[in-house]
């Protein structure tokens, strides 16, 4: 009873926020409400027994996407203009067409899901049954790095491709990313160094823990990479990391090293195990942990660079 009420409250909040994101007059409000929606989604994932997703959503879906959106909001604000000055809304009949179209979509999907019987057998059931063969104890890590490893490989390449693409269309260094700091000459708030002194080591620790724990419980390269990327964003915003126009060799290695390692171990599987992307008997856990370590960097660095809007970063400690 209480459970159902909580679900309804969550769904109501989620849909209410989504409507506000679309309908709100002020763009800034839409962006902030979208970030709030991301946090609410993290609660939804937890409700639906998906703690891995809750972690990833809070860090990536709400946190990093939010930071990217806010930076872009500021960049798309014309100088000296307070309001949003949005392009003229579409004529009324278009809104009607859109309403009919999206209403039809809702009806079609709703009708389809209500008629959908859960299948007797599923890939997930087999994954759980054969978890022991994968070498790790967490079913999601097993799916991501053993059963469907090629998806994970391709997906890290997607992130790399987004970084490459962002380089093609990037703005000049001074305007890109979060933009120039408001008062570079003025001092830093007194609490900032304190915060960094607490957050940075703790964040690295948390990332390391998440990486290691992915073998047997929620966590893994995605979550660890997201936490590291969040630290990168923090250091970039506080000026510890400065944007530069060149990618250093070390950064290049961090960007593609994990993917190269993953592909190389995958290819070696053709000779040393049964197939490409198979792990030799008894080596699965070690190799998966090794790959995940490489992937953590290959996730964290492009995300940080995409936020920074630069090809590289240099340390400028204070």
């Amino acid at each position, binding site marked *: 009873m209480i459970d159902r009420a909580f679900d309804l409250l969550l*769904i109501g909040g989620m849909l209410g926020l989504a409507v506000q994101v679309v309908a709100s007059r002020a763009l800034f409000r839409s962006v902030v409400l979208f970030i709030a929606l991301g946090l609410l989604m993290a609660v939804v994932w937890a409700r639906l027994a998906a703690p*891995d997703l809750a972690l990833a959503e809070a860090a990536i879906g709400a946190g*990093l996407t939010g930071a990217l959106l806010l930076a872009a909001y500021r960049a798309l604000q014309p100088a000296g203009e307070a309001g949003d000055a*949005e*392009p*003229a809304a*579409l004529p009324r009949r278009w809104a009607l067409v859109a309403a009919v179209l999206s209403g039809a979509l809702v009806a079609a999907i709703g009708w389809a*899901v209500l008629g959908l019987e859960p299948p007797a057998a599923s890939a997930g059931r087999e*994954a759980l049954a054969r978890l022991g063969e994968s070498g790790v104890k967490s079913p999601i890590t097993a*799916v991501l790095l053993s059963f469907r490893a090629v998806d994970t490989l391709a997906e890290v390449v997607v992130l790399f491709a987004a970084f490459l693409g962002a380089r093609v269309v990037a703005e000049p260094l001074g305007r890109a990313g979060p933009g120039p700091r408001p008062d570079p000459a003025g001092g830093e708030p007194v609490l900032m160094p304190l915060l960094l002194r607490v957050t940075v080591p703790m964040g690295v620790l948390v990332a390391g823990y998440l990486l290691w724990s992915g073998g047997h419980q929620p966590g893994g390269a995605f979550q660890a990479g997201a936490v590291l990327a969040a630290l990168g964003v923090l250091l970039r915003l506080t000026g510890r990391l400065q944007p530069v126009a060149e990618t250093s060799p070390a950064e290049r290695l961090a960007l593609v090293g994990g993917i190269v390692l993953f592909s190389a171990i995958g290819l070696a599987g053709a000779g040393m195990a049964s197939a490409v992307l198979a792990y030799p008997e008894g080596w699965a856990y070690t190799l998966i942990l090794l790959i995940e370590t490489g992937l953590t960097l290959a996730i964290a660095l492009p995300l940080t660079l995409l936020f920074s809007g630069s090809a590289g970063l240099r340390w400028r400690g204070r």
Partner: protein
Amino acid sequence: MTQAGLYTLAASALAGIGVYGLIVRRHLLRRILALNLLGNAVFLLLVALARRHPGYVDPVPHAMVLTGIVVAVSATALALVLARRYYAETGLRHLPEDEG
């Protein structure tokens, strides 16, 4: 109605809101937001459907959504950079309707 059923219906409603926003709002940032709403709807549908099985939670959709979240942030980041550059070059924050 089961919990999973409730959330699948919520997912279809969320998808509708996203598509509506994508059509009626022209500001590039709003269109990117609307696409992300639609993405969240798809993820929600996958996870809710994974919850229907008696006795176990299907890990495959969870892995798919985890992958999907990273793909979504990659695409969003590229779209935002492109929108900013487009604005810097043209001064426009929406795509003109007539060309193409």
